[in-house]
């Protein structure tokens, strides 16, 4: 699926928005179709949450336009960045409040609640108080609350903040399931693995506008082809000799000097050459496919190079 304007549930055209005089979004274009999970990906402060507020109609663009061609603004639901739930109510009661606030009568609300619990696999915790649930379950409940009542557009802001692998995949499944049932989902995230698992398309947001957009797998193939990430992790910074060798082999060190990465061909050969030295230094070697974080880093670099 893609942002076919015919079935679009959310359209941004040249949206500028911000707080006071401070511009955050500077000409954001995007279209999300019904049944599509679209992820806005970007570093902290890029303006993702601001875009979410505009998408919900909570923040007016200062320039440009935002439209909800399907059901208008009234079909939008939000799962905010913090877990936005009544602490003294159970999961099911929270969902009921949302359903009934949206105008559903009791019976209709019960059906909506059951559906949202099913989509997020929250049934087993339905009758527990939010206050006693673990962070991961609260996250699920928070997303469930946004899926109540068949919204035409679900905006989920950082739903995986601080959750384990298991919850992450449950949340991805929930979003996918909601999309399959026809919702458009705007997913706000800087969690690369989650976006790869959940999103049909991803847009890279940098300083208030999109710098790249497409299917995650296609973008990764296009950017990296057969190249792989070779990461070396040390417990303490490696000796100068080893560091020099690694730099020559095309590695870049993280700011703390403990993680070194190289994206390139023949990762296993390079790994084999380094294996003994790394092992002696107490480090570990990991070969993986480049992910969205790698792509984001590459895009930033490219942009930086172009700007200077």
């Amino acid at each position, binding site marked *: 699926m893609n942002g076919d304007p015919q079935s679009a549930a959310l359209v941004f055209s040249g949206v500028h928005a911000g*707080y006071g005089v401070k511009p955050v979004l500077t000409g954001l274009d995007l279209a999300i179709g019904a049944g599509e999970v679209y992820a806005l990906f970007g570093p902290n402060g890029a303006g993702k949450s601001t875009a979410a507020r505009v998408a919900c109609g909570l923040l007016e663009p200062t320039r440009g336009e935002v439209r909800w061609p399907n059901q208008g603004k009234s079909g939008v639901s939000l799962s905010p960045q*913090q877990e*936005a739930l009544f602490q003294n109510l159970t999961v099911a*009661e929270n969902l*009921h409040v949302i359903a009934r*606030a949206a105008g559903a009568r009791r019976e209709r609300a019960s059906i909506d609640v059951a559906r949202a619990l099913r989509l997020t696999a929250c049934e087993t915790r339905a009758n527990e108080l939010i206050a006693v649930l673990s962070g991961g379950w609260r996250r699920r409940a928070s997303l469930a609350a946004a899926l109540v009542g068949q919204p035409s557009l679900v905006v989920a802001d950082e739903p995986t903040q601080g959750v384990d692998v298991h919850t992450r995949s449950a949340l991805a499944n929930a979003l996918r399931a909601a999309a399959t049932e026809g919702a458009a989902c705007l997913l706000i995230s800087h969690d690369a693995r989650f976006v790869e698992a959940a999103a049909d398309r991803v847009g890279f947001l940098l300083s208030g506008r999109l710098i790249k957009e497409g299917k995650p797998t296609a973008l990764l193939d296009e950017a990296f082809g057969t190249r792989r990430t070779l990461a070396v992790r040390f417990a303490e910074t490696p000796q100068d000799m080893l560091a020099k060798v690694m730099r020559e082999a095309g590695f870049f060190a993280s700011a703390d000097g403990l993680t070194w990465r190289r994206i390139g061909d023949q990762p296993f050969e390079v790994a084999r050459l380094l294996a003994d030295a790394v092992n002696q230094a107490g480090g570990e070697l990991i070969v993986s496919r480049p992910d969205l974080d790698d792509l984001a880093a590459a895009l930033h670099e490219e942009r930086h190079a172009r700007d200077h």
Partner: protein
Amino acid sequence: MLAIIEAYARGFLRDRPGLALTLLLPPLIYLLFAAIFGASGQGSIDASVSFTDLARSAASQTARAAMRKSFDRLSEQDSVQAVEANVVSGRADTGVILRAGDGPGLRIEILGTGGREAATNAVAARMSAIHAAMAGRAVDDGSVQRRRLGPAGDFQATYYAAAVAVMFMFFAAVHGAMGGLDERRSGLQARLVLASRGLAPVLGARLLWLTAVGVAQAIIIFLVATPDLPSLAIWQIAAGLLTAFVVGLAASGFALMVIAACRSRDQAQPLSTFLVLVLAALGGSMAPRFLMPPAFQSIGWLTPHAWAIESWQTVIWLGRFDSDVPTGWIVLAGLGVVGWLVAFVIERRRLSG
């Protein structure tokens, strides 16, 4: 909107300690006030005295001169009715009527109300002394007499029930409204606004819920005070409840406004406590307004507390429904509505950030 009110109600009922503090503390404080001020009857009070001189004789001139020396707050009226009205409304603690007695003597009548025996006693004692001085000897010939005005109930009981009720309604409303800060910070407010398609139902639910809690507090306090109150007619109960409703509205609107203006609990806690205490002090919730200097009595009308106490006092103790009561209701409901509107404007601006 109903769904959100229901959510507040459920959460409230589950928070047992909070529930107990909200509903049991106020009647305890009432009992404490009643005990303290009921017992203070013996002290010399700087009572305000309203008098009229029907004798207009040489003796009454002497008595008036002595009264001017004895009482700092003395006001002269031209009829017995005017004096009675002053006493019954609380504007004066005690009334004194000077009548011509046998020959050159005076008959003195002291007017008081139930529950203000302290002031009445003090004035009666003073007037007996004046009378004795004029006669040149202590006399107990029944020329100084006392008469109680108004119902048998305790004037002060109604006052303190009203005073404690309004103070706690404001405390509880501010405390409850602070939950809104968490809802705003967590994004729950934004989520509810999207679900209800507007901020008005969300803030409306909050206003009505806080009002309901306030009304419950008022009912409990007045129930505890019932033994000290005059026996009430149905209309008085209804008018008392309606007063509770508008006081609750005023407290909730005020609380939502103050909390909307704050960014965090760290700001809201001290600010709201300060405001609630100042209003309570000026409005007569801590010390009776009828004992305050005139300047403070006038300033008091700027507080919702004074209007609330006055309205309850009028319908419950006086058993009257004069124009002051609906005026008070309008002032209180007006504060509630204005507070809510201000809160609405501020919270709507905050939704975008």
